[in-house]
C-alpha cells in the first residue's frame, strides 16, 4: 500500500490548496470558487494537515500553530491594504469574544511587505483581541503561495484544514463553519 508520510501529506495539501487558489482570475470565477468553498466543512477523512509555522506577534512572542492543537482555528491571511480584509476583522473580533471559551481562536497572518511598521498601528486602532503575526515568504509558500486576500483556512481541533475561503464571504458562512467544527 502506498501511503504518504506526514510531510508528504502536508505537501499534497499545499498542492491541492494551490490548485484551488489558481481559480480567481476574474470576479466571476472568484464567485464560483467562493460558492465551492461555501459548502459544509470537509469530512474528517478528507482533511489535510495545516502546514506548521512559528511566527512572532507584535510583542515578539513566538506563535506556534502546533500550540493550538485541540482548538478550532480560523487562520486568516490578510494585509492592511486589502479592503475586503478590513471588513472581516470586526467579525473575527466578535467570533473571538463569542467562541474563545469553547476552544476557538482566530490567528491573523499579515502579509504586508513593510511588516510591523504598518501592521502595529493598524491593529491597535481596531482593538484586535486575537493573535496577529506577520507572515513570511516561507509560510506564504507553505500555504500554497497566497495570491489573493483575504484567504482563510479553518482548522479542526486536530490541526487539519476543514475548509478554505478565498475572498470575502459572509460572516454567517464563517460562523456556520466554526459552529460545525466546535460541535
Amino acid at each position, binding site marked *: 500500500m502506498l501511503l*504518504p508520510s506526514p510531510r508528504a501529506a502536508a505537501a499534497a495539501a499545499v498542492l491541492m490548496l*494551490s490548485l484551488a487558489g489558481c481559480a*480567481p482570475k476574474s470576479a466571476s470565477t472568484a464567485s464560483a470558487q467562493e460558492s465551492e468553498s461555501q459548502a459544509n466543512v470537509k469530512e474528517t477523512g478528507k482533511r489535510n494537515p495545516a502546514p506548521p509555522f512559528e511566527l512572532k506577534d507584535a510583542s515578539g512572542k513566538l506563535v506556534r500553530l502546533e500550540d493550538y492543537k485541540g482548538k478550532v482555528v480560523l487562520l486568516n491571511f490578510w494585509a*492592511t*491594504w486589502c479592503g475586503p480584509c478590513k471588513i472581516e476583522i470586526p467579525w473575527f473580533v466578535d467570533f473571538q469574544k463569542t467562541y474563545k471559551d469553547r476552544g476557538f481562536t482566530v490567528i491573523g497572518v499579515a502579509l504586508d511587505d513593510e511588516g510591523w511598521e504598518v501592521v502595529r498601528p493598524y491593529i491597535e486602532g481596531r482593538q484586535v483581541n486575537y493573535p496577529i503575526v506577520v507572515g513570511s515568504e516561507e509560510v506564504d509558500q507553505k500555504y500554497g503561495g497566497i495570491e489573493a486576500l*483575504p484567504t482563510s483556512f479553518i482548522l479542526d481541533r486536530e490541526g487539519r484544514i476543514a475548509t478554505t475561503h478565498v475572498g470575502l464571504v459572509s460572516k454567517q458562512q464563517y460562523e456556520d463553519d466554526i459552529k460545525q467544527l466546535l460541535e
Partner: protein
Amino acid sequence: MKTISNSFLSSAALLLLAGCAQAQSSTVLTVQDPAKLVVKRGENPSFTLRASIRAGYHANSNTPSEEYLIPMKLTWDAAGPLRAQDVDYPKPKKEKFPFAEAPLSVFDGDFEIVTRFQRAANPQLGPGFVTGKLRYQACNDKMCLPPKTVDIRLPVLMQ
C-alpha cells in the same frame, strides 16, 4: 508500506504554485509594449503608456480615496537621455464596492498615462532606453492581489 517521496510532492506542489501564482496575478494589468520614441534635437517629448486591467478587476488610482490603499504610481529612472517632468494620470472612476463604505477612486479597463519628458543636457545621441516602473495594486469586488511592479523599457532615438 512504501512512502511517497516527500521531495517529489513538495517539488510538484511548488512548481504548480509558481505557475499558478504567475497565471493569477501577473496578467491582471498588462502594459502595451512602447513604440520607439524619436526625439528631435531640442525637443522635450511626451510619451503615452497604454495599460489595460482585466475585466472584473480594478486598480487603485494615483489618488486613492482611503489612506490605507496603495496608489498607482509611474516612476522613471533619472539616468538616461530623458528626465520625467510630469506624469498625468487619467481621471479616475468613483466606484462603489461591497467592501468599502464610500466609493473608491479606481482605474479599470483601458487607460493611458502620459509622461512629459525633458531632454537631458548633452544626452548621448542615437538609440537608447528610458526605464521606469509602474506600481499598482488590484482587487475585484471580493478579493485583493498583492501590489505589483511592472518594469517599463521605453526605446528612444535621440537626434
